[in-house]
């Protein structure tokens, strides 16, 4: 699909990268593009990336990011994406402050997808999340404008990362109302990603109160068959139901039976059980929250034998603990 053919003259061995970086300095556009394509091919080899970083041509790439030719920009983004696959690459990218020019490129259609992938790789770095926070306003501004499903999912996962680092900043810039339409979007993947972002947002107290507003959409997501969707939705409910308003809303929306069903499903295969473990824990915690209301307690006391039986059958320690806490809360009397 590349209209550009890499040049035949790529140096052998140690000379490949330096020669190519020399070619990058050429003012003519065509040669530059070919050199970039060759560089991209070279970097697929594992050890070249460290070489490339040592050769120190990151500054050149930074200049090329602002080139007029969109193909050049797209290629440079790909190269940066490959560099970011290594920990040292990520470190170098963050240290060389690539984030400002990358944030300019968010507006650029051909490079956008690669920039999102690059940013998600950067977030794997230990200080990546903190650096992504500087991009948070731009990312949030892009959220309503993004049309493609895949890009929306990528953007939402990036936002989830940012929210996990500092939810307060996001809440101050009114993130909940921005995310609310995405929760009722058509595609399941978008809704899942939006629910994950909501879960990150509902950790602080102010967030919990704001997320109460969108609980109906979340409850609808809980009914889906997809496990990830159920996981994220039950996570949101678990966090929001800590507040009294949240509890009442959830009871009103009748999520209790759904959560019970999630908890009490039995699977024989070890792998499925392991995969479902976080889902079961979230659902149990949500039930514990809801059991603190009188109505919830009453409903759950009817189901108490079921919970007890489940607790005896369960082998996993964590789930057992959570079950016991739930049973305690249900049987609490003042």
């Amino acid at each position, binding site marked *: 699909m590349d209209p550009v053919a890499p040049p035949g003259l790529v140096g052998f061995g140690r000379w490949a990268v330096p020669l190519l970086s020399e070619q990058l300095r050429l003012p003519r556009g065509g040669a530059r593009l070919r050199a970039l394509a060759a560089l991209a091919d070279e970097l*697929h*080899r*594992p*050890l070249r990336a460290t070489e490339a970083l040592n050769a120190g041509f990151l500054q050149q790439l930074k200049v090329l990011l602002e080139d007029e030719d969109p193909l050049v920009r797209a290629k440079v983004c790909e190269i940066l994406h490959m560099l970011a*696959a*290594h*920990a040292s690459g990520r470190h170098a990218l963050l240290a060389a402050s690539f984030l400002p020019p990358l944030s300019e490129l968010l507006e650029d259609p051909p490079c956008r997808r690669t920039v999102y992938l690059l940013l998600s*790789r950067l977030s*794997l770095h230990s200080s990546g999340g903190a650096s992504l926070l500087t991009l948070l306003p731009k990312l949030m501004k892009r959220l309503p404008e993004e049309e493609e499903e895949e890009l929306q999912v990528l953007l939402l996962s990036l936002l989830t990362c940012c929210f*996990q680092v500092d939810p307060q900043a996001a809440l101050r810039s009114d993130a909940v109302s921005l995310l609310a339409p995405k929760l009722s979007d058509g595609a399941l993947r978008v809704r899942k990603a939006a629910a994950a972002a909501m*879960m990150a947002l509902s*950790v602080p107290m102010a967030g919990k109160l704001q997320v109460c507003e969108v609980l109906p959409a979340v409850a609808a997501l809980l009914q889906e068959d997809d496990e990830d969707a159920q996981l994220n939705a039950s*996570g949101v409910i*678990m*966090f929001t139901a*800590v*507040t*009294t308003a949240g509890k009442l809303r959830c009871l009103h929306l009748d999520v209790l039976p759904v959560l019970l069903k999630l908890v009490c499903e039995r699977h024989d295969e070890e792998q499925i059980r392991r995969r479902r473990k*976080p889902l079961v*824990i*979230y659902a149990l*915690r*949500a039930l*514990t*929250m809801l059991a*603190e209301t009188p109505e919830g307690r009453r409903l759950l006391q009817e189901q108490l034998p079921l919970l007890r039986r489940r607790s005896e059958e369960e082998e996993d320690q*964590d789930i057992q603990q*959570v079950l016991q*806490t739930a049973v305690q809360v249900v049987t609490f009397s003042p």
Partner: protein
Amino acid sequence: MRTRDERTSGAVGPKRARRKFRPRTPEPVQGRKHLEVQTESFLEELSDIPVVQEIECQTDSFLDRPETPIFIPSKTGKDAETQIDEGDLFDFEEEVRPILEILVGKTLEQSLLEVMEKEELAALMAQQRAFLERRNNQLPEVHRLQEQERRRREERERRMAEQKRALEEEKEVAEKMAARALTQQQLHDLVPSVFASLRREGYFYDPVERDVETNFFPRLVDDVQRVLQKKCRARELLDVLSFTPACRRVHRSGKILPQAQ
């Protein structure tokens, strides 16, 4: 024939000079003519026009002719032959092994490295996810307990506030009751004494009486006074009228009046 004066060529210099002064046959005597005669053994016809012979030649179009046979030099020397059988030069299997090892090794190494890179990324993401899950497992419990604590504390404070308010209200009520008893006691005697003093001061009156007093009596008194005044005036007048003549009479008569009895 060229005359001596004409230049035979454009040459100048010694050659020309030499040519000019070259000895020539003297001029013919008058009546005689010189003739050039060849004195060689073979006579030549001298003429200005060279003998020209024209010969024409024309090639025919090429006829097909067979190719020249390849020149095969005749054999010289001795015949010798040789043949390489399998295994004479080298053993393929043996020789290829190191090359193959290198090739395969390098490919495997590179692919392993690439796979490891991908796995490293995947492991990082899995680690992040596991951390998140652990955090999300414990965090809501913490929140719930915090919330519970907050609710209980609020409840406790509310109850304490209520209790305090109830106590205060009771105190207020007690004070009010005491104050009421006191005032009742004081006011109990107050009303009769007030009434008595009022009555004493004359604030309670019979309106008819007052009306009579205020309206009727003054007029009556005025009238009475007027009548009395009239009477008095009449008497005075009478006195004056009767006194002055009596005085005059007394004065005229000059008698001393007996003492009035």
